[in-house]
């Protein structure tokens, strides 16, 4: 089961993302993002476990929720992926 992390510019956008995905049956867990991911300071993200990341990103696009980056957890490390 793959684990993804979508990061956002603010807690408000992360919450908008959580609602957007939740409305489509995609559950995400809201949390602070690791420090190294946010060069500009603190940030928030949604962790998705076993979700279809393409469907999730499409949902965010449709709802006009902008995100910063998408990461996938591989071998215990987050790697940024381009979508």
């Amino acid at each position, binding site marked *: 089961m793959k684990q993804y992390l979508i990061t956002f*510019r*603010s*807690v*408000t*956008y992360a*919450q*908008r993302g959580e*609602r957007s995905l939740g409305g489509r049956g995609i559950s995400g867990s*809201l*949390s*602070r993002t690791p420090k190294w991911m*946010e*060069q*500009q*300071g*603190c*940030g*928030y993200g949604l962790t998705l476990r076993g979700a279809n990341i393409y469907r999730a990103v499409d949902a965010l696009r449709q709802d*006009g929720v902008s995100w910063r980056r998408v990461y996938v957890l591989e071998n215990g490390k987050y790697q940024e992926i381009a979508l």
Partner: protein
Amino acid sequence: MIYLDNGATSFPKPPQVVRAAEEAMVRAANPGRGGYKAAMAAAEIVFDCREQAAALFSCKPEQVVLTANCTHGLNIAIGSLFGDGSRVLISGFEHNAVTRPLYARGCKVKIAGRRLFCWEELLDSFRRELRQGVDGAVFTHVSNVFGYILPVKEMAAECRAAGVPFVLDAAQSAGSLPVDFGALGAEFIAMPGHKGLLGPQGTGLLLCGDPGKPLLFGGTGTLSREKTMPEDLPERLEAGTVNVPGAAGLAAGIRLVRSLTPEKIFARGHGQTMACGRALEEMGYRVFTGPHQAMTLSFQGKADCEEIAEALGSRGIAVRAGLHCAPLAHESAGTLEKGTVRISFGHDASPAQTNALLRVLREKPEG
């Protein structure tokens, strides 16, 4: 006490508002400042408040900025759009929360519509001023003194057609009249959280169609290395810790308004306002009522307005007298020297309130 000063604030607060604010103080920390349970609970409370407001006013949650009151929101809006020398069109019924920030920023203020309850005169004058050229407009939805509902849909349409940005002051309308952010097309709509939305004092909302310019600068919990405020709303306009108990209470208040519906709240309040006005006229008072009346009315008697209000207060009837922080509105109506006594009904308006007021006035008509 019979409370008829809802134009100042709603009182007493509904039990669910009190409970929500109290609970927030026990379980919520600082939103957007941590990932632990109490910080996330605070973030959830604040976002819930934004969602409730967005649903009531037809906008997105991130367009809802939490402010300390309506005046705070108006100051952000006016500071975002206007500066020294800006030509700004206002109505003749504005509160000091509109006029003082404009004068403080060196704006050239033009006034349209000085006749109470006369939409035709207001719209003619408003169109004429727009044609002559202005940089923006700021106008109230409802006069806080007279309960005069301004034709804001028409004024908004005129502004949009002329390409003029505008700000709506919904201090006396939010919660009892339709305020559709998307349909109006305002740059900003400012409102208190503690009046018609039934939230705690010290809460307000600014609906933003424009990124705006911050009035305060400081921490937002994110993008901390940047030397400037974030570009994104709502954090851009919310430096420092927001009022979490206030947001919790306000969310509960908006939920209640949505369940009662603004239309029904208005129908009750308006009905009592008009009944009260008719009875006061029969008793010989000078009553300011008209065809576009909300849930507030002003009246004058033979005695000083403050003496009438004091006499009512001593008999358990809470009303407000004086100029109501709106000297321009009084100047327009010709009541600047004497002031008025203001009665303003709330979501709980009832014949019992009207009857209690009238009974006291019949016993001691002039204090």
